C-alpha cells in the first residue's frame, strides 16, 4: 500500500520498513498486538520523513538517442543540435547588426525543431534570446526567431538563415561611440596595428576593445559560411589587426583571427580584409585560410 506510492526511495531501512508493514497486514489473522501497532505507526512516520528529505526538486530530462535527434520534430533546447543552429543564426545577426560597439551572444534557446527538407538538407526552426555582449549583463535580452537551413551537398556550402528579432531597431544604438571611433581612425595618418588581443593572460586595453569586436563581427562572416551541423565556432583571439589605407570613406582593416571549433577542438586561422563605417556596417572583402604551424614542430626525419 504505502510501498507503491514511495517507490522511488532507495534506502534499505525504508524497504525493510515497507516489508514489515506488508508482513503485518498479511498476518492480520493474529490479534493486532501493540508491537504491531507501534511498528505500523513508526513505519508510516519513518516513510513520511524519508520522503520529505528525498523528494528531488526537478525531474531530470530523459537522455536523447542519436535516432531521436535525426528524426523530425521538437529538439531539446538545451542540447547541442539546437544550440549549434542558434549560434549560426547569431553569426548571421552579427554580420548584419554587429559593430565596434555591439556584438550579440546567445542567451538561451527557448524552443527548437528540425526537419529534413526535399532538396536534401535539414531546416531548424528556432525561438531564442540574445544579448549584446558589449553592454554586459546590464543589457536587455532580445527575442528572435530564425529558420536555419543546413544544405546536405557533397561539398560544403554555407547554411541559409532567415532571421527576425523583436525591437532590434529600438535597442540603444551606440551611435555616438561609433561616430567618435570612426572619426578617430578615418584620417589618413591613422595606422592602428596590434597583435594578440587579448594577450595570453586575458588582458585587452579599452582602446583595443572596439577593434576586437570588429574582428569578432568580421569573423562572423567566416563562421557563418563555414558552419555545419557538426561544427560550433567561436573566435578565441584576434591574432593581429593592421589598418589599411581607407577606401571610399570606409575604415579598412586586415585581421588575422583564431577560431575555435568545439567538436573537433581545432584552432583555425583566417586572414581577412574588412571594411566598416557607421552607415554601411561591416563588410568582408577577402578571406584566406592560413595553416597553423605549432602542431608540426618536429622536423621531418
Amino acid at each position, binding site marked *: 500500500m504505502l510501498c507503491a506510492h514511495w517507490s522511488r526511495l532507495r534506502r534499505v*531501512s525504508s524497504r525493510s520498513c515497507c516489508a*514489515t508493514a506488508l508482513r503485518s497486514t498479511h498476518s492480520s489473522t*493474529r*490479534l493486532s*498486538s*501493540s*508491537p*504491531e501497532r*507501534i*511498528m505500523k505507526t*513508526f513505519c508510516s512516520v*519513518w516513510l513520511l*520523513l524519508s520522503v520529505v528529505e528525498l523528494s*528531488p*526538486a*526537478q525531474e*531530470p*530530462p530523459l*537522455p*536523447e*538517442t*542519436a535516432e531521436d535527434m535525426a528524426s523530425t520534430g521538437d529538439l531539446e533546447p*538545451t*542540447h*547541442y543540435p539546437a*544550440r549549434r543552429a542558434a*549560434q549560426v543564426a547569431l553569426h548571421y545577426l552579427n554580420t548584419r547588426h554587429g559593430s565596434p560597439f555591439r556584438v550579440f*551572444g*546567445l542567451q*538561451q534557446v527557448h524552443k527548437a525543431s528540425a526537419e529534413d527538407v526535399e532538396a536534401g538538407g535539414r531546416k531548424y526552426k528556432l525561438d531564442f534570446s540574445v544579448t549584446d*555582449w558589449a553592454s554586459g*549583463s546590464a543589457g536587455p535580452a532580445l527575442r528572435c526567431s530564425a529558420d536555419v537551413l543546413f544544405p546536405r551537398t557533397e561539398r560544403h556550402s554555407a547554411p541559409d538563415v532567415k532571421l527576425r528579432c523583436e525591437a532590434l531597431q529600438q535597442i540603444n544604438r551606440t551611435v555616438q561611440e561609433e561616430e567618435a571611433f570612426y572619426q578617430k581612425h578615418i584620417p589618413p595618418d591613422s595606422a592602428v596595428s596590434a*597583435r*594578440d588581443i*587579448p*594577450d*595570453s*593572460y*586575458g*588582458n*585587452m586595453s579599452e582602446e583595443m576593445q572596439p577593434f576586437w569586436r570588429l574582428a569578432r563581427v568580421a569573423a562572423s562572416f567566416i563562421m557563418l559560411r563555414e558552419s555545419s551541423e557538426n561544427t560550433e565556432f*567561436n*573566435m*578565441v*583571439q584576434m591574432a593581429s589587426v593592421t589598418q589599411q589605407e581607407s577606401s571610399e570613406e570606409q575604415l579598412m582593416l586586415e585581421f588575422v583571427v583564431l577560431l*575555435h571549433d*568545439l*567538436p*573537433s*577542438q*581545432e*584552432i583555425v586561422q583566417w586572414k581577412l580584409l574588412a571594411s566598416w563605417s557607421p552607415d554601411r556596417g561591416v563588410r568582408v572583402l577577402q578571406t584566406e585560410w592560413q595553416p597553423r*604551424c*605549432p*602542431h*608540426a614542430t*618536429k*622536423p*621531418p*626525419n
Partner: protein
Amino acid sequence: HTMDEISAWMNQMERENPDVVSSMIYGKTYEDRNITLLKIGFESTTPKKAVWMDCGIHAREWIAPAFCQHFVKEILGSYKSDSKVNTLFKNLDFYITPVLNMDGYIYSWKEYTTRLWRKSRSPGTGDCTCFGTDLNRNFYANWGMVGISRDCCSDIYNGPTALSEPEAKAVTDFLGAYQNEMLCYLTIHSYGQLILVPYGHPNISAPNYDELMEVGLAAAKAITAVHGKSYKVGTPPDILYANSGSSRDFARLIGIPYSFTFELRDEGNYGFILPEDQIQPTCEEAYQGAMSIINYVHDKNFKSAAITVTATLWTTLTALYISSANVF
C-alpha cells in the same frame, strides 16, 4: 600562475598546514616531470573515503588550474571555522592535482603562438610529425569509439593506443589503487559552462544517471546563486558532443559512483583566454558547485546524527516486535 609558481605554492601549502596537507607524486609526464597531488584531510589510522579533483588535463584551459588552487585555498582557510568543512576533513581525504598535463601547460605559457595548445607533449609515433595526444581521449573507457581522430595532428587524437600517455596512466593507476575509497571524481575544464555526467558514448547510460543528473542540477543551481551564470547539465552526447576515452568515463566505469566534468566560463565570448577580472568570480561559483556535489556525496555516505538515532530506534523496535511475536 606559471607551473613553477604553482609547484612552489603547493610546497608552501604543505609546509604551512602539515597536519592536514601532504603531497604525493604519482607519476611522471612525458618530459619527465613529477605529477604531484595534494592530499588534504585530517590524518587517520584507518583508510578514509576520498574525493578526487584534477585540473589542467588540457593545457590551454588556464582557468582550471586556477580553480584547483582556489579550491585548496578555500578549504584550508575554512576547515577550522566551518563545521561542515571540518566534518568533510574528518570523514574524507581530498586528492587534488592542480595541473595534470604539466608539459602541455608549460608549453602553453611559452609564447603567444603556443597559448592554445591542448594536448600532451609526447612526440608523434611512426611517420607522424605532430606532437601530442589528447589526454581526455586516451583513457581506457570505450577508447577510440567515438569523438576522436586517428590523425595524430588533430587536437582530439586519442593516442597510438589507450593509455599510451604517462599522464593518463598515472591517473588510471592511482584511481585503481584507491577504487574502494574513491567516492567522487571531479575533473575541471573550460569552456562552455557545463556540468557533464557520464557517458560520452551516446548508446550507454550510467546506472545512476537519474541521480547524477539530480546532483548535477543541484550543483548548477548553487553555481547560478553566486553570480547569476547558468550552467547546463547533461551527458556530452546531449549537450556537447559525443566522445570516448575520457577520464570521467573511466572513473565511472571502474565504479566511482559520482563522476563529473566541469566546463567553466565562459560560453564562447572569450573562450579559453578569459579576462583576468573573471577569474575570481568563476572560481567562486565553481567552488559552490563542487561543494554542492561533495556535500551530497558525503552526506549520503556518512549518515547524520538524526538518522543514526532513528536507525537505532528502528532496530530496537524490530527487536521488540520479534521478541513479542515469539511470545505468541
